[in-house]
């Protein structure tokens, strides 16, 4: 379980996160949605222990999130951060030296499933194949938590579908949890158990996808747009 209590993050005068209380149970795939600048990436980085909160506490399986939490949590950044001269295989070997939970053969199986050539150098791969390789490297870790920052962003629909299928095939919903930020809500919705809606650094809503459909008779994107509009209209925020 991931538990956040009263988490705040300030960058200078800008408040990126304000009083965030959040529980992420194990065995779920949860989407983190919200407009640009709503605090999604900051929240993921804080849980991954890559950024410290200005105040508040974060616990992952009862342990305080610090840099060492990175060994429990597989974080996949939005950006391309790999050495371009590495081959896919070399990238996996590198991951093996960095993470105790990295399973080299699982990463290769994922890569093969996604049709990424193991011997190709990253710089020669298409953008889509680099995305697939990054996903394979991340799923190669046998982590309890996968934190994915915009896993679909910038990819064509075929690559997105591959990444979605890889996630379903190679994560165990009994024991593993995926928390991913995304703007591709329509594509991601069938993959998600629940959605966390962030708006201007606060959690505006946290709801199961099937509940949204069952109770409100709308899909996630309509629900989200409605809530953000209502929030703006109610004028209860002072920073506009």
């Amino acid at each position, binding site marked *: 379980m991931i538990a956040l209590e009263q988490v705040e993050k300030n960058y200078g005068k800008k408040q990126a996160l304000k009083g965030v209380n959040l529980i992420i149970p194990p*065995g*779920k*795939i949860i989407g983190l949605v919200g407009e640009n600048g709503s605090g999604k990436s900051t929240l993921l980085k804080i849980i991954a222990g890559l950024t410290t909160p200005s105040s508040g506490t974060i616990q992952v399986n009862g342990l305080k999130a610090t840099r060492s939490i990175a060994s429990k949590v597989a974080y996949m950044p939005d950006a391309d951060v790999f050495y371009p001269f590495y081959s896919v295989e070399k990238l996996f070997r590198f991951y093996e030296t960095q993470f105790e939970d990295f399973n080299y053969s699982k990463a290769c199986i994922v890569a093969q499933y996604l049709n990424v050539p193991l011997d190709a150098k990253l710089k020669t791969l298409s953008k889509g194949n680099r995305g697939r390789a990054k996903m394979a490297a991340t799923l190669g870790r046998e982590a309890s938590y996968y934190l994915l920052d915009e896993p679909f962003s910038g990819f064509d629909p075929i690559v997105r*579908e591959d990444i*979605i*299928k890889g996630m*379903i*095939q190679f994560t165990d*919903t009994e024991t593993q949890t995926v928390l991913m930020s995304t703007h591709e809500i329509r594509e991601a*919705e*069938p*993959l*998600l*158990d629940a959605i966390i809606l962030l708006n201007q650094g606060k959690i505006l809503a946290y709801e199961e*996808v*099937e509940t949204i*459909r*069952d109770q409100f*008779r*709308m*899909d996630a994107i*309509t629900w989200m747009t409605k809530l953000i509009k209502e929030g703006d209209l109610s004028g209860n925020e002072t920073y506009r």
Partner: protein
Amino acid sequence: MSIDFLPDKPIYQQLIDRITGEIIRGNVKPGEKLPSVREYAVEVGVNANTMQRVYKELEMMGISETKRGQGTFVTDNETRLQQLRDEVKEGLVESFLNSIEALGFSKKEMIEFIQTRERGEKQ
């Protein structure tokens, strides 16, 4: 291939409709083995938890049976499958009647229209 879902209905219900539709069409036969939860989840691109729920509901509806260590099978209970056909027919008629009522057509008018259309098709 991933499938498109309607926006105003839970995904698990749409998947139940999809599987029962396959059974009614005869694409999936009585007693036939269904794919595993994960296989099916990957095929249609949904969360495995959602798929688990679909299989559980189908079993509760008496449409499928899980045999320990062997997987999930469509029931071979013909009575139940006939009932399923009737339930689906009932649902279709219900929504048809609601639609014609909303537009102010009478049942009689529609029945006559269908019969005329049938004769036209046969000629």
